[in-house]
C-alpha cells in the first residue's frame, strides 16, 4: 500500500513539474492564437531560444542561475519584437496556410541556426548547488530542482493571473480577446497590445524553455519535437484562454508521467487518443468559447 501511495505521489510530483513547464511555454501561444487568430507553429522556437540563452550564459559565461534565467526571458522577449513587427503582423487575419508556412519556415531556420551556433548536441543544464540533490517533503524525498520548478511555476502563474485580472493591460487584453472590433472601437490600440502580448508570451516561453531544460532537452530539433505537446495544451485548453491551458497542461503532465510509470510502452499513444477524444467532444477545447 505504501508503495502505491509513494508511486502516486511521485507521479503527481513529476507530472506537476512537467505541467508547469508546459504551461509557461504554452500560455503565450494560447493568447497569440486566440487574440490574433494566428497559427503559430514557431512558438517552440522562443522556448528553445530561452533554453540556449540560459545554458550559454551559465556554461560559457559563468553567470549564476537566477540572473541567467531572467536574462533568458528578457532576451527572448526583446528578440520577439522585430519578428512580430516584420513578419507576424503581415498575416494577422490572413489565411491559415500562409501562417503555417511562415512559422514552419521559422522553425526550419531555427533548426539550422541552432546547429550552426551550438552544434547538434544537447545542451546540459547544470543546476546550482543549492538546487541539486533532493529535498525531503515529508512523504518522500524529491529532486530539489523540480521542487523549485513547481514553486517557481506556481509563483509565475499567480503573478500572471493577477496581472490579467487586476492591471489595465490585463483588462485591455481580455477585452480584445472577447471582442476585437469592439475593443478597437472603444479606443484600445490593439496593434500595440498585440506587440506587447506577443513579447510577453515569448518571454514566458523563453523562461519556460530555460526552466524546463532538464525535462525538454535543449537541442536544435526542439521546436519540431515538442510542437505536438504545445499545440495539444493550447487546443485542449481552449484558444485565447489563460486558465484553460493550465488545466490542459496539468492533465497532460500528470497523464504523461502516469502513463510513463504504468504503461511505458504505450504512454504517448494514450495521450494522443485522449487528445483526440477531448477535441471531438469539444472542438474548441475545454475552456474555449463557442
Amino acid at each position, binding site marked *: 500500500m505504501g508503495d502505491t501511495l509513494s508511486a502516486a505521489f511521485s507521479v503527481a510530483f513529476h507530472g506537476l513539474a512537467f505541467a508547469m513547464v508546459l504551461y509557461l511555454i504554452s500560455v503565450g501561444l494560447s493568447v497569440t492564437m486566440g487574440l490574433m487568430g494566428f497559427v503559430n507553429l514557431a512558438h517552440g522556437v522562443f522556448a528553445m531560444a530561452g533554453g540556449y540563452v540560459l545554458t550559454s550564459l551559465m556554461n560559457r559565461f559563468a553567470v549564476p542561475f537566477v540572473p541567467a534565467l531572467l536574462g533568458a526571458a528578457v532576451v527572448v522577449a526583446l528578440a520577439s519584437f522585430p519578428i512580430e513587427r516584420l513578419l507576424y503582423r503581415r498575416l494577422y487575419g490572413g489565411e*491559415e496556410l500562409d501562417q503555417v508556412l511562415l512559422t514552419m519556415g521559422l522553425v526550419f*531556420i531555427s533548426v*539550422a541556426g541552432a546547429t550552426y551556433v551550438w552544434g547538434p548536441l544537447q545542451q546540459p543544464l547544470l543546476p546550482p548547488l543549492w538546487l541539486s540533490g533532493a529535498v525531503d517533503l515529508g512523504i518522500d524525498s524529491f529532486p530539489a530542482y523540480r521542487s523549485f520548478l513547481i514553486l517557481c511555476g506556481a509563483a509565475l502563474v499567480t503573478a500572471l493571473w493577477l496581472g490579467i485580472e487586476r492591471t489595465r493591460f490585463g483588462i485591455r487584453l481580455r477585452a480584445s480577446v472577447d471582442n476585437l472590433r469592439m475593443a478597437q472601437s472603444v479606443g484600445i490600440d490593439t496593434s500595440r497590445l498585440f506587440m506587447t502580448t506577443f513579447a510577453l508570451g515569448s518571454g514566458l516561453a523563453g523562461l519556460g524553455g530555460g526552466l524546463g531544460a532538464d525535462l525538454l532537452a535543449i537541442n536544435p530539433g526542439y521546436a519540431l519535437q515538442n510542437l505536438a505537446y504545445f499545440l495539444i495544451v493550447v487546443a485542449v485548453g481552449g484558444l485565447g484562454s489563460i486558465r484553460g491551458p493550465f488545466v490542459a497542461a496539468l492533465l497532460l503532465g500528470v497523464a504523461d508521467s502516469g502513463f510513463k510509470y504504468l504503461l511505458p510502452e504505450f504512454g*504517448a499513444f494514450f495521450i*494522443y487518443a485522449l487528445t483526440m477524444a477531448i*477535441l471531438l467532444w469539444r472542438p474548441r477545447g475545454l475552456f474555449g468559447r463557442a
Partner: protein
Amino acid sequence: MTPSRAVEAFARRHHYRPYEALPWVAAVASYFVFPDYLALGAQILATILFALSADLVLGYAGIVTLGHAAFFGTGAYVAGILAAHGWGEPITGLLAGAVAAAVLGFLSGLVVLRTTGLALLMQTLVVATMVAEAANKASFITGGDDGLQGMEVWPIFGRFRFDLFGHTSYLYCLSALFLCWLAVRRMVHSPFGRSLTGIRENVRRMHAIGAPVARRRLIIYIISAALAGISGGLIAQTTQFVSLSFLSLERSGTVLIMLIIGGVGRLYGAFIGVPLYMVAQNRFSEIDPVYWYFWIGLLMVFIVVFARGGVLGLFDQFQR
C-alpha cells in the same frame, strides 16, 4: 455571354491544352538527358504524386493538414512489409498500400473532418503522430528505429527487373504518376471536383444549395489518402527501404512546402515545386544538410511575404 457559350467555355476547361504535355515531355526527356540521375528522378516522380494528393485536400477542398505523411508512410510500410515477407509483386503491393492508406483516410477522416480550423490542424497532426508512434512500437514488423529492411521486390509483370541504375524505377514511377494524374485531372474537372472548389470558397453557400458537404470532404480525403499511399509504396519499392521518417511531421511539412513553392490548387504546382525542391535539396545537401534547412526556411518566409501563389502565381502576375 449567351448560356450556350458559357456552357461551352465551362466545357472547354476539360480539354487538354498543349502546355499540359510539358511535364511529360520534360520527364521523358530527363530519362535520356540525365541517365546518371534516374534514381533521384524516380523519387521526384513519386514525390510529385504525394504533393498532388496533398493538393487535392489542401488546394481543392481547402483542408489544411499537418498529417498527410500518415498516408504516405502507411502505403510505404504496407508495400514494404509485403515485399519483406515474401510478396514482392510490385503492382499488387502498391494497390495494397493504397487500400490501407484509404482505409486509414476513411477512419481518421470520420473523426478529423468533423472539425475545422485549428482543431482540424491539430487532429491531423495527432493522427499522424499516433500512426508514427504505432509504427515505432510495432518494431517486430516495421523494424522500428532501424527502418524496414530485407525487402525483395519482384520484376514488374515478371519481366522488368529493378536495376541498380534506376531505369526500371524511373519508368515505373513515371507510368504510375501518369495514370494517377489522368484520373485526378478528370476528377477535378468533374462536377464532383467543382463542388470541392465550391466547398473551399464558400461552405455556407454549398450547404445552402444542398450539397452533401461532409460526405464530399470525406470522399476527397479518402482519395487523397489512397494516392499518398501509392506514392509511399512507389518510394518504398524503388528504394527498398522504409523508415519512421516516412511518417514524420517533417515529411508532412515538406510536402506542403513543395506544393506551395509550385502553387496550390492548380494541379501543376506539384510538377514544378517538387523537382525544384528536391533538386535543390540534392545539391545543397551535398554541401551541408543542415544549411539546407536554413535556406528552405528562408525561402518559405520569402514566399509568404513576397510570392504568394508560388511559381505559378508569379506567372499569373506577369501575365496581368
